[in-house]
């Protein structure tokens, strides 16, 4: 029983992994070309940017907020960095580019954080507003040109692969940027589980007033959270530009809700206090695998949105019904047991 519970995970990660595994097995049986290194690598490659976004969204969702401006921050930070490098005509190298973008992203996140924490406003509405502001500001003040040529360091990164394996059906590439994503996942997971800051996110998400009374610096934490999301989004923005080998200001914005859906699928609770990196990564992978397998089965990719929506309804619906049943069961137990028993439990 304990083993089952452990495998299931605190946020149903086990169930999600099982679904993912089942899907992969079913797809491999249905279409042998699915179970190849090529497919695996291409799914990983297409998951790079969504996973980073999802990590940022996860952090916000754990605190009980929601951020829809991250895509605008990402493209703002990435695009303005590229524009700056191209117009100034110098290439600060990869660390420099990432540093500039992260600074821009964190600054934009700071705006979100300050408005939300200082005035105690609903996060969805504020980030909706800042999304428009960031996007509009990028077009108005940075530019709207499409850059096909990137600074040299970024262009070089675009073509460097970690593995380059020749199989019998062609060559399979695993992009080198999978490594930083893995590092980011581990770092965020470590932060959430092992640091005071991470625990305070769960505390705030669980009950903001309780967290405040327990002595957490709620406002400061909220501001840091939105800065962190901004920084993560900026990294994702730069990586997106690298992977697509061009800087297009029209990219990314509009896909926010897909990422949020993946994070929720991964077991994070929209009201905060719950969520894990493992679940989030599984959620994103599940969406990407579905996307890939729909194509292979011959279903038009147009069904993807519907599939994700149905998955979301089923996943969250089961959770909602289970939660309701648990609540009812708890009430019954409370009625049956006398108060003495609860007192005994509290004493022991």
């Amino acid at each position, binding site marked *: 029983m304990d083993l089952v519970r452990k495998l299931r995970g605190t946020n149903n990660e086990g169930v999600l992994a099982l679904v993912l595994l089942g899907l992969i097995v079913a797809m491999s049986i249905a279409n042998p070309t699915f179970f190849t290194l090529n497919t695996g690598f291409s799914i990983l490659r297409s998951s790079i940017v969504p996973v980073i976004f999802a990590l940022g969204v996860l952090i916000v969702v754990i605190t009980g907020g*929601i951020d*829809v401006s991250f895509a605008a921050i990402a493209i703002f930070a990435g695009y303005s960095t590229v524009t700056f490098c191209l117009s100034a005509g110098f290439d600060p190298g990869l660390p420099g580019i990432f540093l500039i973008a992260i600074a821009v992203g964190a600054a934009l996140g700071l705006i979100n954080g300050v*408005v939300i924490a200082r*005035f*105690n*406003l*609903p996060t*969805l*509405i*504020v980030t*909706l*507003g*800042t*999304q*428009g*502001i960031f*996007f*509009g*500001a*990028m*077009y*108005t003040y940075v530019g*709207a040109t499409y850059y096909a040529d990137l600074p040299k360091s970024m262009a070089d990164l675009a073509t460097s692969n970690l593995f380059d394996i020749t199989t019998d059906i062609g060559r399979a590439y695993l992009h080198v940027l999978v490594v930083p994503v893995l590092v980011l996942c581990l770092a965020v997971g470590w932060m959430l589980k092992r640091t005071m800051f991470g625990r305070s996110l769960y505390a705030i998400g669980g009950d903001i007033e309780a967290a405040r009374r327990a002595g957490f610096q709620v406002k400061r934490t909220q501001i840091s959270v939105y800065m962190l999301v901004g920084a993560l989004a900026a990294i994702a923005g730069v990586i997106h530009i690298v992977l697509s080998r061009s800087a297009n200001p029209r990219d990314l914005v*509009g896909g926010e*809700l*897909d990422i*949020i*859906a993946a994070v*929720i699928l991964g077991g994070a609770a*929209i*009201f905060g206090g719950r969520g894990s990196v493992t679940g989030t990564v599984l959620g994103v992978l599940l969406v990407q695998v579905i996307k890939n397998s729909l194509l292979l089965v011959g279903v*038009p990719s*147009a*069904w*993807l*949105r*519907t*599939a*994700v*929506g*149905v998955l*979301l*309804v089923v996943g*969250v*619906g089961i959770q*909602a*019904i289970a*939660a*309701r049943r648990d609540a009812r069961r708890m009430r019954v137990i409370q009625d049956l047991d006398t108060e003495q028993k609860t007192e005994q439990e509290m004493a022991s």
Partner: protein
Amino acid sequence: MTPTTDKRARASAPNPPPLRNLNDQLGRFTRRLVRPGGAQRGAGRMVAALLLAMALFTFLNPRVFLSPINLQNIAVAAPEIGIIAIAMMLVMLTGGIDLSLVAIANFSAITISTLHTAIAATNPDLANSLGFLIVLAGIVAGMLGGAFNGFLVSVVGITPILATLATMQIYNGIAIVWTGGSTLYGAPTVLGAIGQAALANVPVLFIIFVITAILVAVLVNRTALGRMIQLEGANPVAARYSAIPTRAVLMKTYTVGGMLAGLAGVLFLARNPTASADYGSSYVLLVIVIAVLGGTNPTGGFASVFGVVLATLTLQVVSSGFTAIRLSSYEYAIAQGVILIAVMILDSVMSTRTRRPHKTIPPTGVATPTSDTSLIRT
């Protein structure tokens, strides 16, 4: 209105007991002034904002902005957004949110367009004479979409934002598959006629918008269902203990929301006889902006239809005004965001200012022995 009365209330607070009665009366008076103001504040504020926006753009470029064509454009473009915003307001009134409204509207438009094209292929005259029924089918499609949302929220118990996020994907996905991602052409000629018609220079579309707004306002303010919707949003627990049938109320709210979205889909077609899955994708967020600007409390319980109508018009005026003074749509996006956040901050600052007297009274009251009664009464 509130700041002056507050000042008086605060000034009289530390006075000796004989004045306490006066203080209490003043407090009660202030609260009575503030309470209806809570719901109407959105409307009042938007009247000011609308007039300000009109005056500003009239001043900056009177020739373009005040031209009849520009005013007509505002009146024709506002209804479709406005009706979706009213639907959003209705759902927000219960403390929920409906992200799928625009998808439902498109779904309705696509239903109408396909039905019309299918019938017109065999018999064009029949299609035109059945125009009314076809339009009705579109609205019913919207209602069904809304009812499914209501089912997920009320019976299954999924959080509204998640349920409608999922159904948005579903409806949108079905629409993409149905249309094959392309734009459909063709709509009943009745709709085209309505889209072009005007009564005394006021476009019929705008009249439909106003009538819809009045009907929803009556529903919210004058019917039992409307009162239950408000109570459900203001305090769900209290609503449950007051024997308000939460499930039925939520179900009806989302269905009406879907129906309004379906109507908006009809207006899409009336303006322009084309339907596609990704029309108005920027509306999703715009509609939330309008609802909140119009004084809707996103946590539920308070909203004003009049405020939402005014907010729709204000944003349309700002949008066309920006075009008149040759600013890009991106600068309009900035303005939209800034307006939204500014209004929210203003609201937050105002509400803490009206709440502060309650916090400052206790310390002054503690000094006097009869403070307990005054604390209870205030």
